């Protein structure tokens, strides 16, 4: 026992030594009194991440995205310098954010440019195309978003599940085709999630967050985490013959649920940002897309006995997160949260794809089967065409 403990202490120390040396070196190079790196000009930067319009006030969320601390000292609307308040305070350390409240009688539907000036006189601006009252989390709004989430998430997925009897009557090779079709659908969804995440980060996130790398990191971590959970789930399900397909369907439902959370986020944010037309478009588009998700959950279970309760539960797991998504997107939207959730959804979808592919391989022995390949291709085509049509 004694020997083992001392060896683990040694291991810990040997892991820490390089860190200590690194800290000493950084302290020496950058620390006080060091003249080694004193060239170049440091350029401060802030980003206005969100602008909200409330009663007689415009509220901007600002973050210090530059390499040094800054003070926010002046606020303007369309170049008009106005008295304003900044909370919690005007000094922003790196990555710190604050709320700037500018009392202003704004007009609905009008574009505005919100400007903030920092202590060195540099002005940063955020343009808002259309001013619309920001949405407060009242009971009515919460239920309104819940209804939209239900239409987008739960109902279409449930409708998709109704394909269950159809799939269960299919011959073996046709069944493989439809299973592969699911892979095609998911592949498309995964790519579109990633695209959405990268687009959001490019439009609304400061460069300092390294948008693409943030999406990649979060997506891969989410992929690995779900993989780990999936394995645990399968092990727990044990050797029972039924458990395999059900576990896979459950993993698909969880993955799709995470993805739908991202969709809800997009819808909530679009409504809040006053882009009502975009919101409506997203609702119709996602609703159509999401029937195919129901299909994806139904497919792996189609060879088992019909268990309506379980099937419905999976539908809920996949659909309900859309409601939470609309709430988060609608009431506490920030581009960073949006990008992170979209990336989590992306990782989840790809994890599900791997899961289904592995299952097909176990059943079939190889993936190059013509019905499998055709299924994937048709799945992607269906998604592509529905995405154009809506």
């Amino acid at each position: 026992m004694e020997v083992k403990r001392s060896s683990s202490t040694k291991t810990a120390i040997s892991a820490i030594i390089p860190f200590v040396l690194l800290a000493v070196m950084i302290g020496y190079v950058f620390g006080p009194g060091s003249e080694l790196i004193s060239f170049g000009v440091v350029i401060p930067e802030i980003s206005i991440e969100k602008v909200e319009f409330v009663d007689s006030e415009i509220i901007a969320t600002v973050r210090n995205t530059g390499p040094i601390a800054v003070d926010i000292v002046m606020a303007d609307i369309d170049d008009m310098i106005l008295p304003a308040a900044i909370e919690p305070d005007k000094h922003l350390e790196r990555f710190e954010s604050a709320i700037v409240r500018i009392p202003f009688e704004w007009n609905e539907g009008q574009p505005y440019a919100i400007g903030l000036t920092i202590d060195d006189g540099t002005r940063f601006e955020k343009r808002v195309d259309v001013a619309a009252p920001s949405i407060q989390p009242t009971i009515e709004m919460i239920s309104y978003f819940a209804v939209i989430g239900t239409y987008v998430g739960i109902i279409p997925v449930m409708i998709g599940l109704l394909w269950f009897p159809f799939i269960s009557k299919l011959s073996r090779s046709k069944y493989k085709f439809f299973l592969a079709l699911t892979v095609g659908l998911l592949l498309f969804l995964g790519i579109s999630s990633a695209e959405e995440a990268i687009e959001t980060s490019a439009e609304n996130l400061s460069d300092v967050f390294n948008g693409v790398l943030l999406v990649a990191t979060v997506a891969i971590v989410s992929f690995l985490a779900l993989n780990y959970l999936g394995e645990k789930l399968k092990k727990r399900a044990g050797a029972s013959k039924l458990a395999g397909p059900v576990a896979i369907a459950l993993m698909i439902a969880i993955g799709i649920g995470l993805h739908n959370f991202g969709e809800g986020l997009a819808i909530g944010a679009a409504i809040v940002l006053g882009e009502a037309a975009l919101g409506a478009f997203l609702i119709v588009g996602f609703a159509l897309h999401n029937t195919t998700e129901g299909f994806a959950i139904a497919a792996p279970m189609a060879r088992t006995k019909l268990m309506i309760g379980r099937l419905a539960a999976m539908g809920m797991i996949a659909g309900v997160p859309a409601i939470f998504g609309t709430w988060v997107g609608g009431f506490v939207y920030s581009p960073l949260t949006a990008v992170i959730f979209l990336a989590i959804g992306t990782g989840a979808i790809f994890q599900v794809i791997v899961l289904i592919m592995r299952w097909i391989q176990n059943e079939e022995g190889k993936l190059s089967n013509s019905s499998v390949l055709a299924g994937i291709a048709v799945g992607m085509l269906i998604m592509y065409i529905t995405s154009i049509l809506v």
Partner: protein
Amino acid sequence: MLTSGQKMFIVIATVSLGFVGYLVFPTMDITAQEQPIVFVTHSGAVVQTTGDVLDPVYTIQEVEFDPEKYLRDFDYGKVSKLEDGTTLREFTIIAEDDKIMEIAPGIFYNVWTFNGSVPGPTIRATEGDLVRIYFINNGDKEHTIHFHGNHPAEMDGIFEIVGSGGGQFTYEFIAGPVGVHPYHCHVMPVEEHIGHGLYGVFIVDPKEGRQQADEMVMVLNGFDTDFDGENNLYAANTIPFYYQHHPIQINMNELIRVYVVNMVGLDPINNFHLHGTLYHYYPTGTDLVPSYFTDMVTFSQSERGIIEFEYEYTGRYMFHAHLTEFSDKGWTGLFYVKDSSQLNTEVYNFGS
């Protein structure tokens, strides 16, 4: 018990959630809330905040350049008589270009200065006086002084570049013509040297003098603090909104004379609008008979003139650029007209 894999998973999950949580909700401050403070908007609404107020209001204590003092500060120079009876006025002007000044609350800008301020001193002489200016350039760049007015070519401050780090030059000329003129550095690029603040006012009084009046100088200027080719701040006498919050006190029925010089760069024009009365306008101040009776005069770059007016009623009157973009960015102020015939004159204190 947990396996090491599970432990690792929990650690990674906790760390990543913590980091994401910090990025998403860093403004959540669980420490005790401070006492809320209150501020007043331009339209009079009272707003409460637990944070800091961003407002271009200067208090006298903070001000690095005092527009109150500059307004009526005239430098007549060191006066002596030459043998032929001519009055000699000697001035020393030192240029610097390394000063960082707070030109609006919290905004720090590298000003280039004559005698440490923007604008430089208001130099005043009578027509026919001999003006001698000892110029010392203590800056890191080359500078000159170019006076508007009559003088020999070699006194024009164009080709006689004065070197940095203590370079010297003596400008000497007979003051004239009568009027209000700018002086400024004329080293290329001129826009940069003027934009950073190397300018001031040169007044030449007529020999017979002007009618007794409460006299003041207003230099209309602007600052492009982020160098995007557009001025971020405008003002009369450098500090945006200063006279708005610290009204200029004048007397009812007393003649007011303002020497107005437009030194705004980047924008082609500026203007001066007065409320509650009209003024007589003397373009460049060269004529002793006014050209207009108006409340609106437009100035192109470096255009200037004298305005004269009186108020019939007491109270607060605005003066400002009628280009609303300029007034929104600080070129606006107030006259507070008092009745000096009344004994217990109520002193107006803004914000108290």
